[in-house]
């Protein structure tokens, strides 16, 4: 496109012309994904080495003699040169082997396979609920345009949005589990067990998202085309759903993707409060006992998931509004 406009093809412009905007977009993002993966692999490997504390000592146990510790170090492969350790790790990754946990001797892939679905379950449902709640609320407040409603909305969303999840979680447990006895206080034994953890994530997330939707909606509703649409006396549902909503999606979906990526790796507090056996808790446990393979494996998978989610959001946005391709490597 650049070549067409200026008549002076820039470097790589020929390939862009051949591949088209979508092809260029996809190629660039895939290259980006590979770069992210390589950075994660190298970065996490080096990062764990910097954590103070000896994993061999932790594995050997409190009663271990120095000989036991050295034996554990040898069995874990930590007595080999760093480069050799990295080579073993990287070659394992190429074979799809994320390694074996130092502590529990479980395959790391199995740990992630067991834990990630729990986190993904509450993360996806939470983001879905946030979107379903925040968009209509934000849009409704913007459409109403009342100063009093705006003030109340800002106060409530500011207060709840700024309240830490563990406080919200604790209050929910106090109310719905202990006082009313309607829902389980913790655990993952039944379907109802996930209601309170999701609520603890949804409440602040909805408030943050609704504020952004409201702000974006106020801007969109003030546009000329919306005034024209209103002048044509379109039914409200059609007016907002067909004319306002599509223009809110960029900010909403982008934020939704970021919230989801954050929740996949960052629901540790909620997982702890509700004894939810997710991956966030497992990473923290691994950090405390210096379980290098678990840390590396989880961070790698979560990092790649975050990158893939961002890519997915970009693809969806580009499908909805092809103009966004220009800003995302699709020139």
């Amino acid at each position, binding site marked *: 496109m650049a070549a067409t406009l200026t008549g002076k093809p820039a470097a790589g412009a020929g390939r862009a012309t051949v591949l088209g905007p979508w092809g260029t977009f996809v190629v660039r993002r895939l290259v980006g994904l590979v770069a992210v993966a390589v950075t994660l692999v190298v970065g996490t490997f080096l990062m764990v080495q910097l954590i103070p504390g000896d994993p061999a000592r932790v594995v050997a146990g409190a009663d271990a003699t120095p000989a036991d510790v050295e034996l554990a170090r040898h069995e874990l492969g930590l007595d080999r040169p760093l480069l050799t350790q990295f080579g073993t790790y990287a070659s394992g990754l190429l074979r799809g082997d994320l390694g074996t946990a130092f502590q529990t001797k479980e395959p790391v892939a199995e740990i992630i396979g067991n834990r990630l679905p729990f986190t993904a379950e509450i993360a996806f*449902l939470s983001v879905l609920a946030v979107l379903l709640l925040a968009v209509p609320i934000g849009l409704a407040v913007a459409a109403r345009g009342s100063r009093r409603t705006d003030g109340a909305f800002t106060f409530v969303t500011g207060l709840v949005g700024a309240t830490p999840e563990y406080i919200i979680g604790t209050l929910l447990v106090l109310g719905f589990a202990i006082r009313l006895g309607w829902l389980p206080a913790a655990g993952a034994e039944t379907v109802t067990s996930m209601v309170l953890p999701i609520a603890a994530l949804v409440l602040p997330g909805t408030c943050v998202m609704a504020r952004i939707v409201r702000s974006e909606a106020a801007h969109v509703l003030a546009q000329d085309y919306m005034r024209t649409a209103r002048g044509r006396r379109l039914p409200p549902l059609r007016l907002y759903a067909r004319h306002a909503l599509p223009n809110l999606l960029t900010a909403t979906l982008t934020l939704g993707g970021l919230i989801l990526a954050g929740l996949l790796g960052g629901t540790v507090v909620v997982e702890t409060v509700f004894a939810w056996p997710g991956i966030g808790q497992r990473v923290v446990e691994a950090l405390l006992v210096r379980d290098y393979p678990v840390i590396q494996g989880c961070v790698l998978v979560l990092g790649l998931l975050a990158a893939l989610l961002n890519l997915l959001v970009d693809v969806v946005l580009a499908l909805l509004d092809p103009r966004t391709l220009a800003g995302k490597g699709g020139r």
Partner: protein
Amino acid sequence: MHRSRFLACSITVAATSLLASACTTGSADGPSSSGDTSGGTVKVGVTSDVTSFDPAKGASATDYVMTSLLYQPLIGQDDGGTFVAGLAETWTSTPTKTTLTLKKRLTCSDGSPLTASQVVASLQRYRATSAGALLTFGAANAGEKTTITGDDAAGTVAITTATPWGEVLSGLSSTGAGIVCKAGLDAGAAALAQGAVKGAASGPYEMATARRGASYELRLRKGFDAYPRYASTPAGKPADTLRIQIAKNESTLANQLQTGALDLAPITGTDVTRFTGKTGYAIRSTPFIRNYIAFNQRPGHPGADPEIRKAVAQAVSASAFNKVFGGAGQTMTSYVDEKAACVSTDTTLLTTTDPASAKKTLTGVSLKLEGTNGVAGGAGNSYVAEALRTAGAEVKLTNADNATWATDVTANQGDWDVTVFPLISGTLARGGSYFLGPEPAKGGQNYGAIKNTAYADNYVAATSTTDQGAKCAAWQKAQEALLKANDVIPLATVDVHYVARKGISFAMPGGLLTVSTLRVTR
């Protein structure tokens, strides 16, 4: 199953959106079924996942709970250090030879007979793979210097040590020495560590289902009757099913106890006050961590000077330290708590708290204090640091996590002068192994490089005899030597409170929760 659950739960989004106000079904678990006339299901809370199902490799409290249910030791140790029958019915013990006679008709969880040969194989594996075996058979009897033989016809197992060692029975009663059946031995260490191997269990329960990180369900073995005969084992029926549920957070455990999702849970912090004096709950407390101050006594460190050690002892107060943790623990008079066999309770051996005198010695002295933040975020370390600062010392406090602290202090790879040591073990022999012998760099456990020959001599005397009177006399002399030299400054215990709902009883022989004694009494 997970996918269907995911789909089913999409419906709950709506409920979530409405803050679940429409949900009135409540927990499907409801109150525990522990009140059934049968043993029913009893739900036990724990604060960490199992790190290893191999009894010889157990490291965490949950490991001990789990492996003690699956793998039964030959004997048990009751209050006051007396031994009671486990898989073994009778035994005799001298400093060099211990012979145990197994109960008749013992079986493994697959129904196969548990023979003396299998017990020998299990103990040989324990001797070769467990760090705890060093104290069971003695450091001087490592490897082939301990002979373990069995006679299937007579049902006897004999353990012979090359040099006298009087702690064999005590070691055999530990969870780590739980007997693994042939199926487990054949499966190998990796399989045993990862999960319960079918047919490997010799204890009262076998694994029914395992959801790592969430819960485990253990089923009572039909016909098992080799329970340890502790004097205080309550009447009632063992639970038909034990569900071990994991919650990292003690407030969460308390919430689950309060809502009936748990029947028994350990609580170390202030959440226990939610149950204190409340009907429907019983609380039993026992020391969990025994805190004491120890020094790096290598040349060039302040702790090498006996006067500095004495001044540190004068600067701190065990009762003030106890108050840091709510005053619920017990002040200590030795490096283990008062429930330990042969512990010294002679307070005249302790240096009296005297901050004014401490100031004369400590003013201007620079001390690097390193402790673990594993207990209440290191609040106890902060108290000790402040007490020493008040006494004029310049203190650099490091509150490290357990792994870092263990590397820096117990492996002596860090730069430290003083530590607040959180001892888990409650026996003089195990806890005392840190105060004698070579330093970590030379293959030992003496992290502070203590050179107290009177202690070391009496430690050897105490651990080399099976005569309880002689043992306690030697331990008294050993503790006297250690305390008078201020090599150790006893502080206070941090207690764990086991909160049980009505209808659940259990024994704590020697102050340790023994889940195999859990009985449903309603």
